[in-house]
């Protein structure tokens, strides 16, 4: 090795090392920020947990700022129900949209539709909330909910007075909001698929539907689940649109027509004017609970991906 080459390589080593340290710091900063958030929430919520008891707080259903009695359950319930409605409605549409755009539509159509999907993602949530309140709620109240009640009223999910405001409109608007997230990530996943796989299936005589079902979807399963997790994350944390539509009533009802409350909504509503350390602490406690719910759901989704991947290999 010539001396000149040795210097440059040593030089490159120092550069590499600095680069590695820099990236580690950047990566670590995410953990640091998350750690600080958890720490601050834990410190703020300490007085509330001390007074109410952690498990009593988690399982409690009463939320009464006047008497300093706080329970998280109705908010956890509302967050889960609205997110579930959103996923159930958005997932088939988003995946269908992505399949149509990547597998079937001509390029021109794809560009136009992709553009509108991106526009949908850029609309501020308060606009979604207003649209929900002024357009969706009257339609639900006067048309959709009475019809659902007439035909499916025996199912507890569709029982009760049609108010228009409640879990259902919040879930529907959330579905529209997370649709572009799921669709655009799914499109990217499908685009990365080697064309040879699809062509091979077609060459073997598979119809388009068979190729999608037997080759495209199994190949993209992990990526699509990842897209759904991203969408779910947005649904769990959405504040403004949900608080405008859910009715803000901390109650647990089996019916989608009833009013409820969600974790981010109550924090946004009450934090600014919270009276006293217990009330503020209970709200910080809800932030921790929201953190925990998000963490558990994404862990569960990861587990699901791993299990489904193993099954895909064995079959």
């Amino acid at each position, binding site marked *: 090795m010539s001396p000149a080459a040795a210097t440059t390589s040593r030089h490159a080593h120092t550069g590499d090392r600095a680069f590695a340290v820099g990236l580690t710091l950047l990566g670590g900063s995410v953990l640091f920020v998350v750690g600080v958030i958890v720490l601050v929430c834990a410190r703020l919520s300490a007085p509330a947990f001390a007074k109410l008891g952690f498990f009593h707080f988690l399982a409690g259903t009463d939320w009464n700022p006047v008497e300093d009695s706080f329970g998280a359950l109705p908010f956890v319930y509302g967050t889960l129900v609205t997110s579930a409605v959103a996923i159930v409605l958005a997932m088939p549409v988003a995946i269908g949209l992505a399949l149509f755009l990547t597998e079937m539509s001509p390029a021109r159509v794809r560009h136009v539709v992709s553009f509108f999907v991106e526009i949908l993602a850029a609309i501020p949530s308060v606009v979604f909330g207003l649209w929900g309140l002024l357009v969706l709620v009257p339609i639900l109240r006067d048309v959709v909910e009475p019809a659902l009640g007439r035909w499916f009223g025996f199912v507890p999910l569709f029982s009760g007075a049609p108010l228009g405001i409640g879990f259902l409109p919040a879930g529907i608007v959330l579905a529209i909001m997370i649709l572009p997230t799921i669709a655009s990530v799914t499109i990217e996943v499908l685009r990365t698929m080697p064309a040879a796989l699809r062509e091979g299936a077609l060459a073997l005589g598979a119809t388009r539907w068979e190729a999608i079902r037997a080759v495209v979807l199994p190949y993209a399963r992990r990526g699509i689940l990842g897209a759904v997790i991203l969408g779910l994350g947005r649904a769990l944390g959405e504040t403004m649109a949900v608080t405008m539509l859910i009715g803000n009533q901390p109650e647990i009802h089996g019916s989608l027509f009833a*009013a409820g409350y969600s974790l981010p909504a109550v924090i946004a509503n009450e934090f600014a004017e919270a*009276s006293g350390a217990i009330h503020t602490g209970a709200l910080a406690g809800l932030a921790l609970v929201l953190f925990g719910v998000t963490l558990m759901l994404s862990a569960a989704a990861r587990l699901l991906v791993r299990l489904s991947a193993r099954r895909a290999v064995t079959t």
Partner: protein
Amino acid sequence: MKRLAWMAATLMFCAGVARADALLINGAGATFPFPLYSKWFSEYNKLHPNERFNYQSIGSGGGVKQITEKTVDFGASDAPMTDAELARAPGVVHIPTVLGSVAVVYNGAPAGLKLTPEVLADIFHGTITHWNDPKLQAIPGQPKLPDIAITVVHRSDGSGTTAVFTDYLAKVSPAWKTSVGVGKAVKWPGGLGGKGNEGVTGSVKSTPGSIGYVELAYARQNALTMAALENADGKFVLPSIESTSAAAAGVPIPADFRVSITNAKGKDAYPISAFTYILVHKAQPDAAKGKAIGRFLWWAIHDGQKLAGPLDYAPLPKPVVTKVEAALRTITVGGKSVIASN
């Protein structure tokens, strides 16, 4: 070298001008009077170009917190400070600036609705569920009410409006006092929660059969139908600037102005009214700022009152203004009253 000296000179000149030019006074607190206060600050700035007021409408709770910690020069709150809060912030005085009231608004029943205190409490309690309930229909002079369900709409965010409204309900209904109580956020027996005045307005406008409460200014600007309430003298009164000011005249005002004027006496008084306050420290640490605040408040309770009406705030009645003048004289810089020294 010469250029450097020039630059230094220019910088020093600029700094000197900036300091002489703007005396910046910081305040924070209630959102309710924010439109009026911004109008006041901009008008006052035209008269005194050297004094700039910066106001952050972060909510009454934040206003009390910040004046207690002395991070602002003045605070603002819709609700008077409690004894416990005042103990943590000794020497803070309440200066009432204007009055506001809470209108009961509804949708789906004919105009001209009349409500007695008991009926209003029953509706928000959820014990009266239909508009044509006999108790509601039996009020003398009531228009014919339809057979539709009542949907109660309340504020979901912590707010001074809710505090005033629940304070009134607790005064007129012992059942409300024991089961719900008074606060900026309470446990509502039922109904829907709307975020902010605009959220309640939206829900009331879009839900037939609904009833809710919003600030008077908001109800007027959005042309919502308002109910007349029976006051302590047995008269049915619509919320208005005059009936709100009348409420302040019907209650003995203590020297520290910390008083609830809901359910006030007087035949013209609207029963759900309240003062909104600016909070300042009696002993001002900074001479220039202290004098400027004193001068501004003096202007606000005199000339400033004329700007209140057009923005749907109720001006202070004359006897109250006289009392506030006395309170302003107790604000001092280095032991000397800021008002007398002007």
